[in-house]
């Protein structure tokens, strides 16, 4: 054997040996940090192990965009009020220990508790909130959901640069502990609104340490820099793996916080999450793969939870396309779908067929019950519209983004329309960004969509349908609808207001620029040792109430 050959083989052998040694020796070197837990240890040490889905893009409340981020931020930052333990429509004191409002709910005053502190020792003051809202509304910061704050008087003008002085905006610190919020109109649902990320405070000193009020993407959100006012503090952040938070001793209500820490694992794939749960790595997953749901329901019903959730799954219809511009056609498309069959056979998570747009659970708002399964009437309408038995009906495409359930539902609907109406549609699944582009530029015929409510009021589902709204994307516009929405925004009496919104939705459902499918549920696996995890329709849990039973629970 030549020397060259020998060298090569020798090198490879060394490499291999080195890797083996390193692999088995690393056990001694790593520190037994808290995230190498089994369930038993976790229960004993009161560390909650959860997965919230994909990796959060940021943990800066003003820059955060999604549910994942919100669920993690909520552990560390508390707003004026916080979710109650078992009713999403009720609140408990947060940074504010009392509050009041005027008769028509357009001016609110919150009193910041004197014992509220940041984790760096600073007291929480009303000025912190003013600073945070200013940051959110500073255009150069580029907060993606700055418009969430437009409900503050003068906010939109400030954002657009029409006014220069933030004092013109309807939020004032009367003194260190009193915050006055002035809104553009009656806002009875403000208490739900202020729990959202956009309204959460941040510690001004920390922000300014890393830049100006409008500097983006600084490292203030990293472990060690993150200053919190909530029940927990950030201990480590390993991207794409785990975010560990531990008890915040300076939290005003620390005595009532039951857990000692939470580990947020980032696991995107539902099958992997399911396996991690079974292996005893998690207390709770955020979803369950479709095919495992019947198994859990039948064999381990104590491990699976199916909670109602404020979300609606629907298809947008581009009403500028020929045939789709006729409301009769749109109604026919809706009536020809057997939603019960879809929910029962494909989804199997007790989702509710959507009979209206706004899902149930929005406090006192009664969901509408207008859309049903009536294939006879559908056929009749289609004939009336000029396409008897589907003859002459143009061929359309249903666009959706890549996901197993979207495909299954689209295929089922494709089949239903073919059988009941005699029309042919093709399916096209697109990669996420392409799909978003298609939808936002309205280059589609029918596009799968979903909307999750942000707060406990139907307007979160209805305001998007006003003319030209960035989230409308269907070309649908109805001035009467816009007028109703606006009227509701000016109505101080909550009951009257809900009535107006109800009428608006009825109008929407008579024109139907959408195909309604189902109302969401939140399905997940959770160990019985987790206590006080009540079903909440927005899924926003106040972690300070959560507890772990200190006994050994083994997952099957």
């Amino acid at each position, binding site marked *: *054997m030549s020397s060259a050959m020998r060298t090569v083989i020798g090198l490879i052998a060394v490499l291999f040996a080195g890797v083996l040694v390193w692999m088995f020796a690393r056990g001694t070197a790593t520190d037994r940090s808290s995230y190498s837990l089994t369930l038993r240890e976790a229960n004993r040490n009161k560390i909650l192990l959860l997965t919230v889905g994909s990796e959060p893009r940021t943990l800066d409340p003003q820059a955060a965009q999604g549910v994942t981020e919100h669920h993690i931020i909520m552990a560390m930052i508390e707003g004026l009020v916080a979710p109650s333990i078992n009713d999403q429509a009720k609140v408990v004191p947060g940074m504010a220990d009392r509050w009041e409002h005027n008769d028509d709910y357009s001016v609110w005053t919150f009193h910041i508790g004197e014992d509220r502190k940041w984790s760096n020792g600073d007291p929480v003051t009303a000025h912190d909130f003013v600073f945070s809202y200013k940051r959110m509304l500073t255009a*150069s910061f580029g907060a993606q959901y700055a418009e969430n704050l437009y409900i503050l008087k003068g906010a939109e003008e400030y954002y657009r640069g029409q006014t220069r002085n933030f004092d013109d905006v309807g939020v004032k610190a009367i003194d260190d502990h009193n915050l006055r919020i002035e809104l553009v109109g009656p806002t009875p649902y403000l208490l739900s609104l202020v729990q959202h990320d956009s309204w959460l405070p941040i510690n001004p000193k920390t922000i300014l340490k890393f830049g100006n009020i409008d500097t983006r993407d600084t490292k203030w959100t990293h472990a060690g820099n993150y200053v919190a006012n909530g029940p927990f503090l950030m201990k480590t952040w390993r*991207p794409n793996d785990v975010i560990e938070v531990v008890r915040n001793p300076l939290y005003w209500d620390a005595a009532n916080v039951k857990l000692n820490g939470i580990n947020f694992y980032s696991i995107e*794939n539902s099958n*992997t999450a399911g*396996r991690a749960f079974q292996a005893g*790595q998690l207390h709770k997953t955020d979803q369950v793969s479709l095919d495992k749901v019947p198994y859990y329901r039948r064999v381990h019903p104590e491990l699976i939870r199916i909670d109602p959730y404020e979300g609606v799954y629907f298809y947008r219809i581009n009403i500028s396309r020929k045939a789709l511009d006729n409301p009769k056609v749109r109604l026919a498309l809706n009536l020809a779908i057997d939603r019960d069959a879809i929910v029962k056979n494909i989804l199997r998570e007790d989702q509710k067929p959507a009979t209206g747009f706004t899902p149930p659970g929005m406090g006192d708002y009664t969901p509408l019950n207008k859309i049903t399964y009536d294939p006879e009437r559908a056929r009749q309408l289609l004939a009336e519209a000029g396409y008897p038995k589907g003859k002459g009906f143009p061929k359309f495409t249903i666009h959706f983004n890549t996901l197993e359930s979207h495909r299954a539902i689209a295929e089922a609907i494709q089949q239903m329309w073919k059988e009941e109406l005699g029309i042919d549609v093709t399916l096209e699944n697109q990669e996420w960004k*392409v799909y978003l582009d298609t939808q*936002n530029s309205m280059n589609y015929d029918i596009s799968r969509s979903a909307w999750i409510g942000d707060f406990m009021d139907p307007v979160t589902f209805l305001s998007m349908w006003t003319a030209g709204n*960035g989230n409308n994307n269907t070309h649908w516009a109805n001035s009467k609808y816009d007028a109703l929405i606006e009227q509701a925004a000016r109505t101080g009496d909550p009951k009257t207001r809900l009535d107006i919104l109800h009428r608006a939705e009825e109008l929407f459902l008579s024109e139907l620029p959408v195909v309604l499918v189902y109302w969401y549920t939140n399905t997940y696996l959770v160990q019985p040792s987790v206590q006080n995890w009540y079903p909440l329709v927005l899924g926003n849990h106040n972690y300070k109430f959560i507890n772990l039973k200190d006994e050994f629970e083994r997952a099957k």
Partner: protein
Amino acid sequence: MIKVIAGRLLQLIPVLWIILTLTFFMTKIVPGGPFSAERQATPEVIAQLNAYYGLDKPVWQQYLGYLSKVVRFDFGPSYTYQSESVNEVIGRAFPISLQIGTLAFCIALVIGATAGVIAAVNKNKLLDYLPMSISMLGICLPTFVLGPIFALVFGLVLKLAPVSGWYGLNYVPLHPAVMPAVTLGLFYAAYIARLTRGGMLDILNQDFIRTARAKGVPEHEIILRHALRGGLLPVVAFLGPCFAGLISGSFVVEKVFNVPGLGQEFIKSVFNRDYPLILGTVVFFGALIVIFNLVSDVVQLLLDPRSRN
């Protein structure tokens, strides 16, 4: 020899530049931008963000600006990981892919070469068909099938390996790199087995081997001394792309075992239109591939005198 190596290393620069330019313009043509979301932000916000990241400038200007930063090894901020730069993302994700890739490579080489040699030596007998058939399985079952099966068997049932995650998983004996590496390695082991067998058979059929046998040279010497070298030649040519492919993280295993490696980051960045991260990883992978091809060519030259000019 040194001259050849130096020359090839210098060629790295224009090659990387071309890779960079082509990818840059490709990402600009593909529809969808980094800031679109299910819930649309207002046009002003999008304009603001585009301005902040310089995406509102004309494309050629963006390109030049980017190029000027790259020569200083600054690949810019990541759009997905809003408080990290691309360099930091690559810096934390690559070591993980490297560990998995290296282990997989060793597994592939050792198992593959051994199987190939045994098969070649016992041509057309059971010891030929058996390893070749098993290695076929390695190719036929995609990683996204083998992966979950292994995760199920070794993770859940036997409790030997972690099912998900990377750091600090001390309650199982095997390191989180092992199962992904095995899943990945078996795939390439199959390839290597076949290439080795093919290459060795080529040699074993040649006249000088018959001469050697006729002269009474012991069989094992024939194999180890002559056949093996020829057998490994096509493998060596394959090693460059093989290692590069392994290192690119085979995002599927990273996804199945939920390991935060660079392959997964890369795929995510494409889907999120995180241009700086896409470009950074492409250039990085490109450099790796070119370097490994160089190593493979050098080894080839060393091993096969016939290819010396």
